[in-house]
């Protein structure tokens, strides 16, 4: 069976064939700015003692005065997450954005350190060598 054989022994030609076949679907997925990008809404619903609860959350984040375009979501247990750093979860959106700045050094060029304290970090990349120190204006 040809189908099975292709799966068994890929070649550059078979790979290009399947990429072509899947390209339009792949393009559509890659373009998706995570359900609306910045300002995407997370809707959490539950019932409690016969009452139905709906919690809608959106994050609007500016970095250096420019809107951050990634879609930040929040889980049922209240942890904040972002697809750009898919292996982590955060107790605070501030921690998440600090990590984004660390992980994407090409997008956030090094600035002079504010030398402030970075209290309240529960997670993430504090003290990563060669990465910028954050100006730490602490609000949670």
């Amino acid at each position, binding site marked *: 069976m040809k189908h099975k054989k292709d799966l068994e022994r*890929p070649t*550059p030609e*078979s790979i290009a064939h399947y990429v072509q076949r*899947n390209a339009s679907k792949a393009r559509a997925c890659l373009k998706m700015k995570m359900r609306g990008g910045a300002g995407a809404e997370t809707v959490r619903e539950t019932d409690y003692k016969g009452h139905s609860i709906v919690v809608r959350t959106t994050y609007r984040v500016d970095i250096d005065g420019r809107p951050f375009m990634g879609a930040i979501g929040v*889980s049922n247990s209240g942890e904040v997450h972002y697809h750009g750093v898919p292996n*982590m979860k955060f*107790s605070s959106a501030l921690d998440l954005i600090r990590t984004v700045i660390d992980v994407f050094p090409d997008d*956030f060029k090094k600035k002079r350190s504010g030398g402030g304290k970075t209290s309240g970090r529960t*997670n993430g990349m504090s*003290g990563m060598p060669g990465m910028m120190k954050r100006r730490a204006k602490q609000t949670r």
Partner: protein
Amino acid sequence: MAIIRPNILKDAVARQKYAQGVNLLKNEFTTSTTQSLGIPGPSNPISTYDLFVVWHQVAMMTMTPTSQNERNAAHSGPVFPAWHRFMLRQLELNLQRALQDPAFGLPYWDWAADGDLTPSKQKKSKIWAADCMGNTGSPISKGPFVFKASNPQSFRVRIDADSSNQLRQVNRGLRRAIGAGATTLPRRSDTSTALKTTPYDLPPWDRSSGGFRNFLEGWAQNPVVMHNRVHVWVGGDMLPPTSPNDPVFFLNHCNVDRIWEAWMNKNGRTYVPLDNASIDLKGHRLHDDLSSLISPPTQPAAVLNMTATYTYDTLLV
């Protein structure tokens, strides 16, 4: 006859062949182009290796279902171990072709063995030696995956994601920040907890689930554990959704696959959800197609028992 997947620290030949094979696939260009996949910039052919980077990103951006942005076609749901098993097997087959060695088995990194060392010794593990994966740094400066601008054959990152999670074309060295995002790797006590955690998966089939899959993936605790912790501990290019850019990605996932195999060996080759589960779980049920890009799709049911194709040198995790 089944091939055997070895521990990379115990097999010098596998070590050398893996690095050689990765560099061969990095320089094997298909007729697929950046333009055909909608990656901005000039249209360039994409190498076989870099198509794995794109495939991972595509799977991660395929939300299952589209009404939420947590569970996707490869992560944060029941399909996590099965989809990565499919991906690993595709890489293994391509490495076998590139190396002209049909008996080549993908090596694994037994990270829990390193995790039982002190934090400073973890960073000095032999896996980060010049004859294995190379060192930490931004970019790395030792080992088989060092970028040399003057040598077009040298390893380089060609496709990564920007901070708003869009793919882009780059030409730079590989980055790692070992031990910066997490001070320790997972430990043997974590892997033995994993083997004892049953059932395979549970509602609501996401990052809040009990069961083995969510523990193995690493969402069961905060900060993250197991597979996720390894990504965070290595850092650099292991953090964005383009993490297959670091060849250590596949060594991590090969160990994840080995732990899954050990779990099935102990607890049975069971998988849930079954085909009659909600349509919201489409992509995660036993006979649903797994997200594919470079080959025909397969299904979780088809990868549950691979023992006729490959086994591990040991299932002691």
